[in-house]
């Protein structure tokens, strides 16, 4: 069985490399510093939301509220941004944790199905975001360094020689490394931590055990309810972080952003080969899934830019659905052939 998600994750990685290769071959500027950093900066939000979704799905649940929770957090963070980076960050995270706690409570204590519970919090978070913001976007402050969370990097700290003419390959590596967007650092750190938690802690093993069989884990004496509660809090926290980055990246709290994020996150998790029935999954593969979907859209945008075909936003949603269809069919085949073997 371990070969299953390894092979699905490997398939996603292969597809990612193929797409990057295709883009590099077909489009000028695809592998440019600018494009790479833009893709990383933008997709770090989805990567964070996808990581939370990955843990939730591994327990056999689902979190539909992530998009509107991120929107709510972005509004809270934008309101607090005039007081500085830390208050804005903490406020946004607190909003996310609050929503996640409510999800966790409703699901683990009131025993309500995850999809209906998180559907309700999706409505509620969106309602609260609209009420707080008076249905308008909330400008974030440019006077504090809050915006660094979305737009910043460490390029300022680069030694002079790496920007010079004769910096060479080593210099370019350092330059890209320091030019790595802060949101991408945050996402990377979150994934490393997530991977450690899943593979090296008791909590991680409980997550997989609960997803494999809730009743069985309960009978084995595992803290089932606490595990389920915690994954939703975690998903809320990560959605909150994504919301903070959203506010900082676009310079405003966006009460109506985040629509469809949950679908994107679910799709990345599925593409990464994590089983939707729970019990199996990989944090790294989810990151690959997010990047795969993100770069797929970059490719579509480049294709548009070349003017050969005109892919309207409408076509993109058809293609997104079609892509999800292919992945779901493949996953269903994979699962069945492994089950039969």
């Amino acid at each position: 069985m371990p070969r299953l998600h390894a092979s699905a994750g490997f398939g996603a990685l292969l597809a990612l490399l193929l797409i990057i290769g295709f883009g590099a071959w077909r489009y000028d500027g695809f592998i440019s510093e600018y494009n790479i950093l833009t893709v990383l900066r933008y997709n770090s939000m989805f990567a964070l939301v996808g990581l939370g979704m990955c843990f939730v799905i591994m327990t056999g649940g689902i979190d539909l509220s992530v998009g509107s929770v991120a929107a709510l957090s972005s509004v809270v963070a934008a309101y607090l941004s005039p007081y500085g980076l830390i208050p804005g960050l903490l406020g946004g995270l607190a909003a996310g944790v609050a929503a996640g706690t409510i999800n966790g409570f409703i699901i683990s204590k009131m025993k309500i199905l995850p999809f209906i519970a998180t559907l309700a919090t999706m409505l509620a978070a969106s309602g609260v975001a609209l009420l707080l913001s008076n249905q308008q976007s909330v400008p974030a402050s440019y006077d504090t360094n809050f915006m660094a969370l979305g737009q910043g990097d460490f390029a300022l700290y680069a030694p002079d020689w790496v920007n010079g003419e004769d910096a060479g390959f080593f210099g370019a590596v350092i330059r890209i490394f320091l030019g790595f967007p802060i949101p991408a650092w945050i996402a990377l750190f979150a994934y490393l931590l997530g991977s450690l938690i899943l593979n090296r802690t008791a909590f991680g093993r409980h997550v997989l055990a609960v997803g494999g069989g809730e009743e069985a884990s309960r009978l084995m004496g595992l803290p089932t309810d606490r595990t389920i509660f915690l994954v939703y809090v975690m998903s809320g926290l990560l959605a909150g972080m994504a919301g903070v980055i959203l506010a900082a990246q676009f310079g405003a709290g966006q009460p109506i952003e985040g629509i469809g994020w949950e679908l994107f996150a679910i799709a990345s998790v599925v593409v990464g080969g994590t089983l939707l029935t729970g019990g199996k999954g990989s944090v790294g593969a989810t990151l690959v899934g997010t990047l795969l979907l993100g770069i797929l859209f970059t490719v579509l945008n480049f294709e548009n830019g070349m003017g050969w075909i005109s892919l309207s936003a409408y076509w993109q949603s058809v293609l997104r659905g079609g892509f999800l269809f292919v992945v779901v069919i493949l996953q269903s085949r994979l699962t069945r052939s492994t089950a039969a073997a």
Partner: protein
Amino acid sequence: MSSTTQNAPSPVPGSVGSPPRGGIASLLSRRHIGTIAALIALLIFNFIFTPHFATMQTLSVNLTQVCVIVIVGVGMTMVIATGGIDLSVGSIMAIAGAFAPQIFQGMLFPVPNLYVGIALAIVMSITIAGFFGLFNGWLVSSFRVQPIIATLILYIAGRGIAQVWTNGDLQVFKVPEFQQIAIGRVFGVPFQVWIMLALVLIAAWALQRTVFGRQVLAVGGNEQAARLAGIPVRRVKRLVYVISGVCSGIAGLIVIAMNSAADANLIGMGIELDVIAAVAVGGTLLSGGRATIIGTLLGALIIQLVRYTLLANGVPDAAALVVKAGLIVLAVWLQRQDRA
């Protein structure tokens, strides 16, 4: 479970084929008492506090608002009864709504006269919607894709198809003959309300009194047992998604007839939440096996009335969202207490 014997799925094939008898009155069971009590409480509150509540206009406004949700809810209740879910209803509405005007305006192929065009438009759009439902059912039954993911595909792609087809443009039309299906009145009641009532009664009857209905509940109650009892599980599942698609198609036509315009970007946007909420508040078990169409009608009325009450008393729509969320959680939680 013993308190719900009336609709409890039975794994024994013999009893599946012999549903209980009774008149229309017995479609309402004591299970609905809580829902009806909530509805009456809301009505009384409004009669006392909301100005101009007891008017024909208020009734008409509320009924037309609730119609589309209930019609989609009929299909959704069937799907949820098998333990599934259909997120794609809004997108399928958009597809049906985008195709119909092009057909009766003779843009796709020449139609001999308007009436034939309208008839073709209605039949063809609903058929197309049914086929999209079949796609969902095929994924769920043949590939065993989880319903929430299977219908997510059309939730994303379906609206895109409607938008690509119409180029995202608003199609305005002025065809009163077609618009009768929404705004025409019979005995002073809008025609769409009659459509809704007819669908509700047929579906409630089918769910409780036909073999198919018992099979739907049996599949939702315990799929394994249903399969062992010889119920064609896959066919039942496919069929409920087709029904949901057809209901969404009808709802899509009503929406465009009401607006005398089809906007693929907006038809049925976000309706899946309202519909699932109505089904949950109405007392249908979201894990499947127990379902009530009448409950869905009552649930939709309650949600609409709550929203109307809040709006009429000056509470913003955004706050109504929060209230709706609380209502869903409360309703599902009460269901659980009832079962325990």
